[in-house]
């Protein structure tokens, strides 16, 4: 097993170039930036950071090509998206109600020690909504696979072949940020599988895609569901971690009660903060958080792994 490195956002503090140069990589490097959507081809700056060794998998471009040429796949993709949108709408309604209950319970005065018990039960109710959504999503994927087996001889098969050939020959893969929904969708659409021996460097949405549970969050978003939302399963290369890019800009880190609810809600995961300048290394197939990584603990504090 090789190394996985998660970086902070690259827009203002660019570390991908120095990170890749610090690794013993001599061959080509696959670039996945389909989260940039229609800007996917504007990859000159990223390729420059990789010293010209980058080869773009162009997953977004390929997806549009397939959807434009294969009516059956396009119809199936649209049907899937319709069902997922509907599922997300119902999940949002249930989640908001469950989160509102946590807020109400936690603000109620408790004289006889019922409060903490009620709060834990309210958080468990939120977990139950999350589990329901995840189960429904799994069922949706199962149904899609059962009804629309991919035509490996068609356009999508041709693209999968090309992507697989590139992945077979590259030494490392970098996965950029952007729209995490689009990124995951394109990875899943072409059944992209990262080779265990390949080094992977990822940031922002790319970092989220490497985990097993992708959580959407934006405490400052003016509208919509106010709580973090389970979105989808990631590639699972880093299980047990929830990646939180731009945490300072997107989370009320000073609101300990709110952060505590977040950490306790996802108690089986470590909540990893990935702010500007962060470099978190997982060498030799490791999946435990290394010393120095910043996380949100169950008390809602930002703590550093390995700190006394």
């Amino acid at each position, binding site marked *: 097993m090789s190394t996985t490195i998660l970086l902070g956002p690259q827009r203002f503090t660019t570390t991908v170039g120095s990170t890749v140069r610090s690794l013993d990589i001599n061959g080509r490097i696959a670039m996945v930036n389909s989260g940039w959507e229609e800007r996917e081809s504007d990859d000159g700056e990223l390729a420059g950071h990789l010293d010209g060794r980058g080869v773009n998998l162009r997953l977004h471009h390929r997806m549009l090509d397939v959807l434009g040429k294969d009516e059956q796949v396009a119809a199936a993709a*649209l049907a899937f998206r319709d069902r997922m949108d509907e599922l997300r709408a119902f999940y949002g309604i249930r989640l908001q109600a469950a989160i509102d209950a946590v807020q109400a319970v936690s603000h109620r005065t408790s004289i006889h020690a019922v409060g903490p018990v009620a709060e834990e039960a309210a958080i468990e109710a939120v977990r139950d909504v999350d589990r329901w959504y995840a189960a429904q999503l799994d069922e949706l994927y199962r149904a899609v696979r059962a009804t629309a087996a991919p035509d490996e001889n068609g356009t999508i098969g041709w693209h999968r072949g090309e992507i697989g050939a590139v992945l077979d020959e590259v030494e490392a893969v970098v996965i950029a940020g952007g729209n995490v929904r689009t990124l995951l969708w394109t990875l899943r659409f072409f059944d992209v599988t990262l080779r265990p021996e390949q080094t992977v460097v990822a940031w922002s949405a790319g970092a989220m895609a490497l985990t097993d549970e992708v959580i959407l969050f*934006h405490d400052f978003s003016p*509208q919509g*569901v106010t709580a973090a939302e389970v979105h989808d399963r990631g590639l699972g290369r880093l299980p047990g971690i929830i990646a939180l*890019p731009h945490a300072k800009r997107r989370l009320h880190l000073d609101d300990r009660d709110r952060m505590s609810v977040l950490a306790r809600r996802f108690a089986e995961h470590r909540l990893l903060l990935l702010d500007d300048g962060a470099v978190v290394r997982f060498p030799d197939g490791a999946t435990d958080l290394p010393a120095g990584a910043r996380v949100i603990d169950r008390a809602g504090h930002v703590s550093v792994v390995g700190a006394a």
Partner: protein
Amino acid sequence: MSAMERLAVNRLRERLPLDGPTIDRFVERYGCPIIEGERATFLYRGDVDEVWVRHRVIGLPDPLPLKRIGDSDLWAVTTVLPEGSRVEYQIEIRKGEHYERFNDPLNPRLAHSPMGSSSVCAAIGYRVPEWAVFDPEAREGTLVEEQVRSKALRRDQPVQIYLPARFNRAQRYPLLVVHDGTDYLQFAAMKTVLDNLIHRLDIDPLVAVFVPPRDRLKEYPNHAPHARFIARELVPLLTERLPLVDTPEARCLMGSSFGGIAALSTAVRYPGFFGSLLLQSASLVFTDIGFDHGGGPAFDPVVKFVNRFREKPTAVVDRIFMSCGVYEPLITPNRSMVPVFRHTGMRVRYTESRDGHNWENWRDRLGDGLSWLFPGPQKFVYE
């Protein structure tokens, strides 16, 4: 020294008598109106017998008379103008028996509407929202003009269909139906607003259809053929031709003033077909006893409709975004209808602004309204 004495116009008064060059320099330096803290001083210069500011702000004298400064040809009046306010006004003069109204010749800032133009007085703290101004970075959607054959209206109805940037038939879009559509495009910069809000991820990409009326006073206050055209002809046609989300939650009707009544009455006639309403300064005039509403004959069908709704309020959509300016006469009816709507179980978000019954007020509220009704994909993007 009191606050009033420190106003620029009061400092000028201390220099009486005033000669022409002194007034020239004063006007050149301060412009008009002069905004000092939460006070606005309006000026007029000319050889007239009387001058007023005509503004239609509820709570202030209208007309607001200006007083001559000394024996000069400069007239002035100072009024309170709270932070964030925006007022549209004109100057009226009397010279002998002759009255005349026009935009403030000392103020280059204008607002436009189907009725013409007005001068604009923006108080301290008022800013045009960034998303209301053309942004060259925002990808532009396209407007397609069409004629839709309507049996209900017995005519070809022109519409303009907005398709968002990167419109893609492999995706589905919510639908926004805009009453007074041409005016929203022309006077509320609505295409620019949609382009910008979508670009900034504040709202989901959506399809909007802009529908102008032919006989507004007849078709907008609870008119069956209009409602039938919208719900039974236009929406089904668009749903057939475009990749729209075919659920009530994804269909929104919007309008301002009488257009707000058109939106609400269409939803009332087809309950459950639309998921949301965006009502801006809707003409929700009603009476609690008798029928003396004071709005003139044009409001008779409006009052009948609103009175009937208030007698038996029902949930006709899931969500309503309402906005109204606190300086307009419709503020009380709008405030009064919020609990009526909420009581039915409809979710209502209501905002007020320090503005009047005008298109720029409605433009400025679009960000709040549209982002609540069509939340954007901010949560999905991690650059």
